[in-house]
């Protein structure tokens, strides 16, 4: 269970949000919506332990999650704006350092046939799918997704829906920032102000 209590953060002397609270039970999903600059990405980075929390608390299973960052990192799978893909490495090599089951992860996003292709030859949508495949490499219970379906075709979005459903069925939680409809059933929505 992921709990956020009174979270506040400041970016460049501007208060992005304050007093933000929510709780996500196992298998829960939360959609972050709101205008550009509302702090959706900032919140995801905070939850991942990549930002500085000015006030408030993030708890995982009742314990302070951000106290031990390396341990928190093992719980989190984060998909940022950028795909974090090295063009010089093949699709499989891009995934390999992040954990086992590379072939299965590539198959889940429909890239199995392109595993040995250098990533610089992949299209933007295929790169996004490769970044999505990284989510499957480790059994991380918290998925933090920033515009996960940007540039994906309908078939890929459907495959991504299967990934999300599988993750939630296993008790994982999903927090996703998006402007596009996501294949997430029964997701709570948190609207961040501008």
């Amino acid at each position, binding site marked *: 269970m992921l709990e956020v209590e009174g979270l506040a953060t400041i970016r460049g002397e501007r208060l992005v949000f304050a007093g933000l609270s929510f709780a996500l039970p196992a298998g829960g999903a939360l959609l972050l919506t709101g205008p550009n600059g509302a702090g959706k990405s900032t919140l995801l*980075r905070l939850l*991942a*332990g*990549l*930002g*500085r929390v000015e006030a408030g608390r993030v708890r995982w299973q009742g314990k302070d999650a951000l106290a031990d*960052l*390396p341990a928190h*990192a*093992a719980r*989190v*799978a*984060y998909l*940022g*704006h*950028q*795909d*974090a*893909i*090295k063009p*010089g*490495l093949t699709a499989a*090599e891009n995934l*390999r*350092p*992040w954990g086992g089951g590379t072939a299965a992860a590539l198959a889940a996003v429909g890239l199995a046939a392109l595993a040995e292709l250098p990533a610089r030859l992949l299209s933007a949508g295929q790169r996004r799918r490769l970044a999505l495949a*990284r989510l499957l490499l480790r059994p991380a219970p918290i998925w933090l997704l920033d515009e996960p379906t940007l540039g994906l075709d309908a078939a890929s979005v459907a495959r991504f829906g299967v990934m999300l459903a599988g993750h939630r069925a296993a008790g994982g939680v999903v927090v996703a920032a998006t402007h596009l409809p996501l294949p997430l059933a029964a997701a709570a929505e948190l609207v961040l102000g501008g």
Partner: protein
Amino acid sequence: MTALLRRELRLALRHGSDTLAALLFFVLAASLFPLAIGPAPETLGRVAPGVVFVCALLAAILPLDRLFGAELEDGSLDQLLLFGLPAPLLALVKAGGHWLVTGLPLLLAAAPTAVMLRIAPEALPALLAALLPATLLLSLLGTVGAAVVLGARRGGVLLPLLVLPLATPVLIFGVGAAEAAASGLSPRPHLLFLAAMLAAALPLCPLAAGAALRSAAE
């Protein structure tokens, strides 16, 4: 950790021109000296250790601005920080990767380059013995510099200004070792000083670089 180091080496292999550029810069810069100050063995031999050291220092700095810069640009830095390793260990892996890809080739190229510059034969072993800890120190100090300038505008210009002053003690004791050996003295005290600096830098530099990486990600 080994998975990350393997990734570093594989990336270096795919972008082999970066390694080769530092190495060629080293050899080319060193071979300008005979042209500039004349090929007379006595003058050239006297400056050879200093030339090798300064050129190695500058060549080692060349690839540093891409060390974390490339990772920051494509978002890999976030993924690396979420790898599950403490940030200082991540910095240590990066420093190790830099040494294997840049320091070690420089060390290998140093002997032929020093001979080309007509170094005194008795000074060559001391020079190479000093270059081993010196290149390791440069990788560690350079990692700190690269992490600190991360996200700064014109970080590539800032980086040498930050790293070169920190590297002066390395230069002084490294060249001192070779000159002591050339004049028939023991290079041991100089080498011990270098080893002591390495012993201090090995825990401190990754800690500093790790903290800088965390703040760059924020």
